[in-house]
Protein backbone atom coordinates (compact mmCIF):
# COMPACT_ATOMS: atom_id res chain seq x y z
CA UNK A 1 0.00 0.00 0.00
CA UNK A 2 1.34 3.34 -0.96
CA UNK A 3 1.88 5.89 1.80
CA UNK A 4 2.22 8.80 -0.59
CA UNK A 5 -0.30 11.57 0.06
CA UNK A 6 -1.84 13.33 -2.86
CA UNK A 7 -1.09 17.06 -3.01
CA UNK A 8 -4.61 18.07 -2.06
CA UNK A 9 -4.60 15.98 1.15
CA UNK A 10 -1.32 17.38 2.45
CA UNK A 11 -1.66 19.40 5.63
CA UNK A 12 -0.80 22.99 4.93
CA UNK A 13 1.42 24.68 7.49
CA UNK A 14 1.37 28.28 6.29
CA UNK A 15 0.45 30.94 8.92
CA UNK A 16 -3.02 31.48 7.46
CA UNK A 17 -4.01 27.83 6.96
CA UNK A 18 -5.65 27.63 10.39
CA UNK A 19 -4.98 25.95 13.68
CA UNK A 20 -2.83 28.74 15.11
CA UNK A 21 -2.64 32.50 15.41
CA UNK A 22 -1.37 33.84 12.08
CA UNK A 23 0.07 36.90 13.83
CA UNK A 24 1.69 34.71 16.49
CA UNK A 25 0.01 36.83 19.17
CA UNK A 26 -2.54 35.89 21.80
CA UNK A 27 -6.02 37.15 20.88
CA UNK A 28 -6.38 39.50 23.88
CA UNK A 29 -3.24 41.30 22.80
CA UNK A 30 -4.53 41.71 19.24
CA UNK A 31 -7.80 43.10 20.62
CA UNK A 32 -5.83 45.55 22.77
CA UNK A 33 -4.00 46.71 19.64
CA UNK A 34 -7.24 47.23 17.74
CA UNK A 35 -8.81 49.05 20.67
CA UNK A 36 -5.79 51.33 20.76
CA UNK A 37 -6.13 51.89 17.02
CA UNK A 38 -9.72 53.07 17.52
CA UNK A 39 -8.58 55.24 20.42
CA UNK A 40 -5.89 56.72 18.18
CA UNK A 41 -8.64 57.78 15.79
CA UNK A 42 -10.57 59.45 18.60
CA UNK A 43 -7.55 61.41 19.78
CA UNK A 44 -6.58 62.33 16.21
CA UNK A 45 -10.06 63.68 15.56
CA UNK A 46 -9.82 65.86 18.66
CA UNK A 47 -6.31 67.08 17.87
CA UNK A 48 -7.03 67.69 14.19
CA UNK A 49 -10.17 69.71 15.05
CA UNK A 50 -7.99 71.73 17.41
CA UNK A 51 -5.50 72.24 14.58
CA UNK A 52 -8.20 73.34 12.14
CA UNK A 53 -9.78 75.81 14.59
CA UNK A 54 -6.40 77.24 15.51
CA UNK A 55 -5.28 77.48 11.90
CA UNK A 56 -8.37 79.46 10.92
CA UNK A 57 -8.06 81.88 13.88
CA UNK A 58 -6.35 85.22 13.38
CA UNK A 59 -4.81 85.20 16.87
CA UNK A 60 -4.24 82.45 19.43
CA UNK A 61 -3.13 82.51 23.08
CA UNK A 62 0.68 82.19 23.17
CA UNK A 63 1.64 78.94 24.93
CA UNK A 64 4.69 80.44 26.64
CA UNK A 65 2.46 83.17 28.13
CA UNK A 66 -0.41 80.93 29.25
CA UNK A 67 1.69 78.12 30.70
CA UNK A 68 4.44 79.78 32.69
CA UNK A 69 3.84 78.86 36.30
CA UNK A 70 5.34 76.15 38.44
CA UNK A 71 2.69 75.50 41.10
CA UNK A 72 4.00 76.15 44.60
CA UNK A 73 7.24 77.71 43.37
CA UNK A 74 6.79 80.36 40.69
CA UNK A 75 3.61 82.11 39.71
CA UNK A 76 4.98 83.20 36.36
CA UNK A 77 8.13 83.55 34.27
CA UNK A 78 8.94 79.85 33.96
CA UNK A 79 7.44 78.74 30.63
CA UNK A 80 7.43 74.98 29.90
CA UNK A 81 9.21 73.99 33.11
CA UNK A 82 6.19 72.38 34.75
CA UNK A 83 4.95 70.62 31.62
CA UNK A 84 8.51 69.42 31.05
CA UNK A 85 8.37 67.76 34.45
CA UNK A 86 5.01 66.16 33.55
CA UNK A 87 6.43 64.85 30.25
CA UNK A 88 9.46 63.46 32.03
CA UNK A 89 7.29 61.72 34.66
CA UNK A 90 5.23 60.04 31.93
CA UNK A 91 8.30 58.90 29.96
CA UNK A 92 9.83 57.46 33.15
CA UNK A 93 6.57 55.64 33.94
CA UNK A 94 6.65 54.15 30.44
CA UNK A 95 10.20 52.95 31.09
CA UNK A 96 9.23 51.30 34.39
CA UNK A 97 6.33 49.65 32.55
CA UNK A 98 8.60 48.06 29.90
CA UNK A 99 10.91 46.97 32.70
CA UNK A 100 7.90 45.25 34.34
CA UNK A 101 7.13 43.50 31.03
CA UNK A 102 10.77 42.49 30.66
CA UNK A 103 10.81 41.08 34.21
CA UNK A 104 7.59 39.21 33.34
CA UNK A 105 9.35 37.48 30.46
CA UNK A 106 11.84 36.14 32.99
CA UNK A 107 8.95 35.16 35.34
CA UNK A 108 10.54 37.23 38.08
CA UNK A 109 7.52 38.03 40.27
CA UNK A 110 9.45 40.27 42.67
CA UNK A 111 10.81 42.53 39.94
CA UNK A 112 7.42 42.75 38.20
CA UNK A 113 5.89 43.96 41.47
CA UNK A 114 8.60 46.59 42.01
CA UNK A 115 8.28 48.03 38.50
CA UNK A 116 4.47 47.91 38.49
CA UNK A 117 4.26 49.79 41.80
CA UNK A 118 6.68 52.42 40.46
CA UNK A 119 4.54 52.76 37.31
CA UNK A 120 1.44 53.32 39.45
CA UNK A 121 3.29 55.90 41.59
CA UNK A 122 4.45 57.83 38.52
CA UNK A 123 0.92 57.62 37.12
CA UNK A 124 -0.44 59.26 40.26
CA UNK A 125 2.31 61.89 40.13
CA UNK A 126 1.30 62.78 36.58
CA UNK A 127 -2.38 63.02 37.58
CA UNK A 128 -1.41 65.27 40.50
CA UNK A 129 0.54 67.58 38.19
CA UNK A 130 -2.39 67.64 35.78
CA UNK A 131 -4.74 68.62 38.61
CA UNK A 132 -2.41 71.49 39.61
CA UNK A 133 -2.18 72.65 36.00
CA UNK A 134 -5.97 72.59 35.63
CA UNK A 135 -6.59 74.43 38.90
CA UNK A 136 -4.01 77.08 37.96
CA UNK A 137 -5.72 77.75 34.62
CA UNK A 138 -9.13 77.63 36.29
CA UNK A 139 -8.05 80.27 38.83
CA UNK A 140 -6.89 82.47 35.97
CA UNK A 141 -10.44 82.27 34.59
CA UNK A 142 -10.15 79.64 31.87
CA UNK A 143 -12.81 76.91 31.88
CA UNK A 144 -15.32 75.34 29.52
CA UNK A 145 -17.46 78.30 28.53
CA UNK A 146 -15.51 80.98 30.39
CA UNK A 147 -12.35 83.04 29.85
CA UNK A 148 -10.44 85.58 31.94
CA UNK A 149 -11.65 89.20 31.63
CA UNK A 150 -10.53 91.37 28.71
CA UNK A 151 -7.81 93.11 30.73
CA UNK A 152 -6.19 89.85 31.82
CA UNK A 153 -6.59 88.24 28.39
CA UNK A 154 -4.27 90.87 26.88
CA UNK A 155 -1.37 89.27 28.78
CA UNK A 156 -1.79 85.98 26.95
CA UNK A 157 -1.76 87.35 23.41
CA UNK A 158 0.51 89.20 21.06
CA UNK A 159 -1.88 91.34 19.02
CA UNK A 160 -5.53 90.82 18.14
CA UNK A 161 -8.57 92.85 19.09
CA UNK A 162 -10.72 92.47 22.20
CA UNK A 163 -13.35 90.52 20.22
CA UNK A 164 -10.97 88.09 18.50
CA UNK A 165 -9.00 87.58 21.72
CA UNK A 166 -12.14 86.65 23.61
CA UNK A 167 -13.33 84.31 20.85
CA UNK A 168 -10.07 82.38 20.42
CA UNK A 169 -9.35 82.29 24.17
CA UNK A 170 -12.70 80.54 24.55
CA UNK A 171 -11.87 78.08 21.77
CA UNK A 172 -8.50 77.49 23.38
CA UNK A 173 -10.02 76.86 26.82
CA UNK A 174 -12.67 74.45 25.52
CA UNK A 175 -10.16 72.49 23.45
CA UNK A 176 -7.49 72.45 26.16
CA UNK A 177 -9.78 71.14 28.88
CA UNK A 178 -11.50 68.65 26.58
CA UNK A 179 -8.33 67.16 25.10
CA UNK A 180 -6.15 67.13 28.24
CA UNK A 181 -9.23 65.98 30.16
CA UNK A 182 -9.80 63.06 27.81
CA UNK A 183 -6.10 62.22 28.05
CA UNK A 184 -6.17 62.57 31.84
CA UNK A 185 -9.16 60.24 31.96
CA UNK A 186 -7.08 57.68 30.04
CA UNK A 187 -4.21 58.11 32.50
CA UNK A 188 -6.67 57.65 35.36
CA UNK A 189 -8.15 54.43 33.95
CA UNK A 190 -4.60 53.27 33.12
CA UNK A 191 -3.57 53.75 36.75
CA UNK A 192 -6.65 51.84 37.96
CA UNK A 193 -5.95 48.96 35.55
CA UNK A 194 -2.28 48.95 36.59
CA UNK A 195 -3.34 48.70 40.24
CA UNK A 196 -5.63 45.75 39.47
CA UNK A 197 -2.82 43.99 37.59
CA UNK A 198 -0.35 44.73 40.41
CA UNK A 199 -2.75 43.18 42.92
CA UNK A 200 -3.08 40.12 40.66
CA UNK A 201 0.71 39.84 40.45
CA UNK A 202 0.91 40.07 44.25
CA UNK A 203 -1.71 37.32 44.57
CA UNK A 204 0.35 35.15 42.24
CA UNK A 205 -2.37 34.87 39.56
CA UNK A 206 0.09 35.11 36.67
CA UNK A 207 2.71 32.98 38.40
CA UNK A 208 0.14 30.16 38.52
CA UNK A 209 -0.81 30.85 34.92
CA UNK A 210 2.84 30.58 33.95
CA UNK A 211 2.87 33.78 31.90
CA UNK A 212 2.79 37.50 32.57
CA UNK A 213 0.99 38.27 29.31
CA UNK A 214 -1.57 40.45 31.11
CA UNK A 215 1.24 42.78 32.17
CA UNK A 216 2.16 43.14 28.50
CA UNK A 217 -1.43 43.98 27.54
CA UNK A 218 -1.84 46.72 30.14
CA UNK A 219 1.66 47.81 29.16
CA UNK A 220 0.41 48.46 25.63
CA UNK A 221 -2.38 50.65 26.99
CA UNK A 222 0.00 52.54 29.26
CA UNK A 223 2.48 53.24 26.44
CA UNK A 224 -0.38 54.45 24.28
CA UNK A 225 -1.27 57.00 26.98
CA UNK A 226 2.35 58.17 26.90
CA UNK A 227 2.22 58.29 23.10
CA UNK A 228 -0.87 60.53 23.13
CA UNK A 229 0.79 62.84 25.65
CA UNK A 230 3.76 63.26 23.30
CA UNK A 231 1.34 64.70 20.73
CA UNK A 232 -0.72 66.76 23.21
CA UNK A 233 2.52 68.23 24.56
CA UNK A 234 3.74 69.21 21.10
CA UNK A 235 0.50 70.72 19.87
CA UNK A 236 -0.57 72.56 23.03
CA UNK A 237 2.72 73.60 24.56
CA UNK A 238 5.29 73.85 21.77
CA UNK A 239 3.65 74.75 18.45
Amino acid sequence: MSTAVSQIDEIKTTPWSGGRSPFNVEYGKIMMWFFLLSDAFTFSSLLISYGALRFSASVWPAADKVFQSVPGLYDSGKPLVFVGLMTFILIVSSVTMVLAVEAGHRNSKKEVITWMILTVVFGFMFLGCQALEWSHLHHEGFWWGSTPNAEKLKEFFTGGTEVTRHLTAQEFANLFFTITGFHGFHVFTGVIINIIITVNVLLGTYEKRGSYLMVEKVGLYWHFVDLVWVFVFTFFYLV
Partner: protein
Amino acid sequence: MSSDSKEVHHEEGDHQTMTKGRILKVAGILTFITAIEFIIALWMVPSGTLPIQYANPVYIVLTLFKAFYIVAFFMHLKFEKMGLALSIIVPILFIIGLILVLTNESHHWITLRG
Protein backbone atom coordinates in the same frame (compact mmCIF):
# COMPACT_ATOMS: atom_id res chain seq x y z
CA MET B 1 -3.67 24.99 30.32
CA SER B 2 -0.07 23.92 30.73
CA SER B 3 0.32 23.39 27.00
CA ASP B 4 -1.07 26.88 26.45
CA SER B 5 1.49 28.59 28.60
CA LYS B 6 4.25 26.47 27.09
CA GLU B 7 3.28 27.72 23.67
CA VAL B 8 3.39 31.34 24.82
CA HIS B 9 6.91 30.88 26.12
CA HIS B 10 7.95 29.21 22.94
CA GLU B 11 6.61 32.14 20.95
CA GLU B 12 8.46 34.64 23.06
CA GLY B 13 11.70 32.75 22.69
CA ASP B 14 11.25 32.78 18.95
CA HIS B 15 11.77 36.42 18.20
CA GLN B 16 14.05 39.17 19.30
CA THR B 17 12.86 41.05 22.34
CA MET B 18 13.61 44.02 24.57
CA THR B 19 16.59 43.69 26.86
CA LYS B 20 17.28 46.04 29.77
CA GLY B 21 20.08 47.70 27.84
CA ARG B 22 17.87 48.39 24.86
CA ILE B 23 15.06 49.74 27.08
CA LEU B 24 17.43 52.25 28.67
CA LYS B 25 18.82 53.20 25.26
CA VAL B 26 15.31 53.98 23.91
CA ALA B 27 14.49 55.89 27.12
CA GLY B 28 17.69 57.89 26.58
CA ILE B 29 16.70 58.69 22.98
CA LEU B 30 13.20 59.85 24.08
CA THR B 31 14.66 62.10 26.80
CA PHE B 32 17.25 63.46 24.36
CA ILE B 33 14.61 64.34 21.73
CA THR B 34 12.48 66.06 24.41
CA ALA B 35 15.56 67.97 25.55
CA ILE B 36 16.12 69.20 21.97
CA GLU B 37 12.48 70.37 21.84
CA PHE B 38 13.02 72.33 25.05
CA ILE B 39 16.23 73.91 23.78
CA ILE B 40 14.38 75.03 20.64
CA ALA B 41 11.35 76.35 22.60
CA LEU B 42 13.23 78.07 25.43
CA TRP B 43 16.34 79.43 23.71
CA MET B 44 16.42 79.13 19.94
CA VAL B 45 12.96 80.59 19.24
CA PRO B 46 13.09 83.48 21.79
CA SER B 47 16.59 84.50 20.65
CA GLY B 48 15.53 84.44 16.99
CA THR B 49 18.06 81.76 15.94
CA LEU B 50 15.18 79.65 14.63
CA PRO B 51 12.02 81.50 13.50
CA ILE B 52 8.76 79.95 14.79
CA GLN B 53 7.56 79.04 11.29
CA TYR B 54 10.61 76.75 10.91
CA ALA B 55 10.48 75.55 14.51
CA ASN B 56 6.95 74.14 14.15
CA PRO B 57 7.78 71.57 11.44
CA VAL B 58 10.87 70.61 13.46
CA TYR B 59 8.68 69.98 16.53
CA ILE B 60 6.33 67.79 14.49
CA VAL B 61 9.17 65.74 12.97
CA LEU B 62 10.74 65.25 16.42
CA THR B 63 7.32 64.23 17.80
CA LEU B 64 6.92 61.64 15.05
CA PHE B 65 10.38 60.28 15.90
CA LYS B 66 9.32 59.92 19.54
CA ALA B 67 6.09 58.23 18.45
CA PHE B 68 8.11 55.78 16.35
CA TYR B 69 10.39 54.85 19.24
CA ILE B 70 7.45 54.37 21.64
CA VAL B 71 5.42 52.23 19.23
CA ALA B 72 8.32 50.25 17.76
CA PHE B 73 10.23 49.47 20.94
CA PHE B 74 8.11 50.11 24.03
CA MET B 75 5.00 48.69 22.40
CA HIS B 76 7.13 46.04 20.77
CA LEU B 77 5.57 46.43 17.31
CA LYS B 78 8.95 46.21 15.57
CA PHE B 79 9.34 42.62 16.79
CA GLU B 80 5.82 41.47 15.91
CA LYS B 81 4.86 39.72 12.69
CA MET B 82 4.73 42.01 9.66
CA GLY B 83 1.00 41.27 9.23
CA LEU B 84 0.14 42.58 12.68
CA ALA B 85 2.32 45.67 12.24
CA LEU B 86 0.67 46.45 8.89
CA SER B 87 -2.86 45.95 10.25
CA ILE B 88 -2.09 48.66 12.82
CA ILE B 89 -0.07 51.06 10.67
CA VAL B 90 -2.10 51.05 7.44
CA PRO B 91 -5.39 52.26 9.04
CA ILE B 92 -3.42 55.08 10.68
CA LEU B 93 -2.94 56.47 7.16
CA PHE B 94 -6.62 57.48 7.22
CA ILE B 95 -5.61 60.13 9.76
CA ILE B 96 -3.52 61.81 7.05
CA GLY B 97 -6.73 61.99 5.02
CA LEU B 98 -8.54 63.72 7.87
CA ILE B 99 -5.66 66.19 8.26
CA LEU B 100 -5.85 67.08 4.55
CA VAL B 101 -9.65 67.45 4.60
CA LEU B 102 -9.73 69.63 7.70
CA THR B 103 -6.78 71.76 6.58
CA ASN B 104 -8.71 72.48 3.41
CA GLU B 105 -11.85 73.16 5.43
CA SER B 106 -10.10 75.55 7.79
CA HIS B 107 -8.92 77.62 4.81
CA HIS B 108 -12.61 78.16 4.14
CA TRP B 109 -13.25 79.09 7.80
CA ILE B 110 -10.73 81.91 7.51
CA THR B 111 -12.97 83.64 4.96
CA LEU B 112 -16.05 82.84 7.05
CA ARG B 113 -14.50 84.49 10.10
CA GLY B 114 -13.73 87.48 7.93
